[in-house]
């Protein structure tokens, strides 16, 4: 819009300039005509040594009327005024030397008024046919001319200002009207904040509809997450009560007796496990629908490089037999958590070899297998570990909460997980994923 306004101003300025120029040109042309008229009325004087202008051969009435505003003077070679029009009542300043044949057009100030002055020098033969030089000068009072120009200028500029004002008003109105949906959006957001509404309405124009639809999805997801966090807090508070109870039940000791550090450490460990488990559970996204597809093989790759760093001293040999890429719908953080824990266990408890492989399952399914050559786990322990999450008031030992977190996450994604004994001697974990 600013560009438009600037353009309009430039146009008006140009217009103004052009009009000014044209007016001056016209004025000069008019005065030229007058001088031609004067030349046509030139006659020899009685003596024949000079020329004069016969007034009766002049048709310009203004030259006859006193103080008409139009004046003419004829100068001889000695710069003496030898003829003056009857309109002259005052003295006019002399002119500078000009070249014969040249027209000199100037705008001057005289008697505190603006004047146009046109001068022309000629050679005219006298009675002896000797060329004498004469200068013809006309003065035209220019006040009226400039006043008119000013009036024109004023009209032009006020027209411009009015147009710009109107333009701005119209554009403002149009903008306000087109932004109406956004105003409505703003009002709805406030209403959602104030809990008067739970989502956006459906009657937005096509340009805005994708925004409101996505915002609605975002709101649903956030509410869902909020609920999960609330649940986690509840579970957390509940599970912490037991170890806290144990600690507060410790016998009061005199300052000189030592507190049973073992019990302290044990309960602190337990509380730590509970807190970690609940935090991990709550921060898991746990919804395949809301996740974009990720490459399982890439995730495995990242975890393997991390584990190879951490377990460098152990020199674990990894045998991988996976498809080049496996796309699944899962939050990347959750996927890293599941595979990270499972592979970490494999590395930790293996003797020296870990195997990862993938194979096609039923329609749209992919099986992922992780095996190690360690000593494996007895059945009942596996059972216990998988249920660790819900029974954290039991004394913790062995594996910790890693597998419990994994069990939680795979359950929420509907990924089937099974444990067996590997032919290599250790644990064999199999996961069944739905591929994209």
């Amino acid at each position, binding site marked *: 819009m600013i560009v438009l306004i600037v353009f309009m101003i430039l146009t008006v300025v140009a217009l103004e300039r052009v009009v000014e120029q044209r007016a001056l040109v016209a004025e000069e042309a008019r005065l030229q005509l007058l001088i031609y008229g004067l030349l046509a009325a030139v006659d020899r004087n009685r003596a024949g040594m000079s020329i004069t202008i016969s007034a009766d051969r002049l048709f310009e009435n203004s030259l006859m009327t006193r103080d008409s505003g139009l004046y003419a003077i004829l100068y001889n070679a000695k710069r003496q005024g030898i003829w003056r029009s009857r309109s002259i009542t005052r003295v006019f300043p002399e002119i500078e030397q000009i070249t014969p044949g040249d027209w000199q057009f100037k705008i001057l100030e005289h008697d505190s008024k603006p004047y146009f002055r046109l001068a022309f020098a000629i050679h005219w033969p006298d009675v002896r046919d000797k060329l004498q030089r004469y200068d013809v000068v006309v003065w035209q009072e220019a006040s009226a001319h400039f006043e008119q120009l000013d009036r024109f200028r004023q009209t032009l500029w006020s027209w411009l200002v009015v147009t710009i004002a109107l333009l701005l008003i119209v554009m403002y109105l149009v903008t306000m009207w087109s932004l109406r949906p956004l105003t409505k959006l703003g009002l709805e957001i406030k209403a959602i904040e104030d809990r008067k509404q739970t989502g956006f309405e459906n009657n937005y124009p096509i340009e805005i509809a994708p925004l409101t639809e996505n915002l609605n999805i975002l709101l649903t997801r956030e509410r869902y997450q909020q609920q999960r966090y609330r649940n986690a807090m509840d579970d957390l508070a509940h599970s912490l009560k037991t170890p806290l109870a144990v600690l507060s039940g410790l016998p009061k000791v005199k300052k000189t007796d030592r507190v049973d550090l073992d019990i302290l450490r044990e309960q*602190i460990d337990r509380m730590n496990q509970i807190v970690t488990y609940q935090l*991990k559970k709550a921060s898991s996204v746990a919804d395949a629908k809301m996740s974009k597809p990720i490459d399982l093989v890439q995730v495995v790759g990242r*975890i393997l490089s991390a584990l190879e*760093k951490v377990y*460098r001293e152990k020199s674990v040999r990894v045998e991988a037999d996976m498809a080049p890429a496996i796309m699944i719908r899962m939050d990347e953080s959750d996927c890293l958590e599941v*595979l*990270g*824990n499972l592979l970490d266990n494999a590395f930790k408890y293996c003797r020296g070899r870990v195997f990862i492989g993938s194979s096609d399952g039923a329609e749209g399914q992919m099986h992922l297998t992780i095996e190690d050559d360690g000593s494996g786990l007895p059945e009942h322990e596996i059972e216990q570990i998988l249920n660790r999450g819900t029974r954290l008031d039991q004394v913790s030992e062995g594996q910790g909460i890693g597998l419990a977190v994994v069990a939680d996450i795979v359950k929420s994604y509907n990924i089937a997980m099974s444990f067996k004994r590997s032919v290599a001697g250790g644990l064999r974990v199999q996961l069944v994923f739905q591929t994209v």
Partner: protein
Amino acid sequence: MRAIVIEDDLDIQKQVIDRLKQEGFAVDGADNGDEGLYLLQEYPCDVAIIDLGLPKLSGLDVINKIRKAGSNLPILILTARGRWQDKVEGLDAGADDYLVKPFHHEEMMARIRVLIRRASGWSDSRIVCSPVSLDTTTQRTYVDERELDLTAFEYKVLEYLMMHAGEVISKTVLTEHLYDDEDDRDSNVIEVFIRRLRQKLDPDEGLQPIETLRGRGYRFTLDRVKQADTD
């Protein structure tokens, strides 16, 4: 050995530093990423313990910058963020190991020792340059099967020299890696320790385990015995 601890929780920082000093480390501490980076760039050290959630410059940024500058310093990350995503990101950025808070200090020390040994090319907790051997976990020294009675500082000097067996270590480097800031650093004291070490290691003067190179420093002359990978 010298360690740098970058941790903004002052209680934990103090605990870690105290434990490291107990184990014979000289330690510098910082409580924000900018100061930590400065310490890492200006002071030589053998291991860095870095928290991720730091003010001013984050732990990951500090690690990135150090690695980009070409440092191979062993780095242990200490953090409350326990998700595997955070572990992988930390290790990708250049850390060598990752410990989740709260942790047992024994575990932390064990991991730090592994990292230091790894950096010197030792994969075992025993450093053996026959007939001298060092058990870095128990901090005991043996010549053949005979145990030596070394003071804490004598052990520190010997451990450093043996970790870098075959390399020339100047007195300045030795002082920087073994002394805390507050202690008086007098390089003549090092000479005294070296002399005492020689007396204890090599009473008959047949072994000559520590060589003095005038104007350059000291070198542990006995060859490393390569450890077979533990299986």
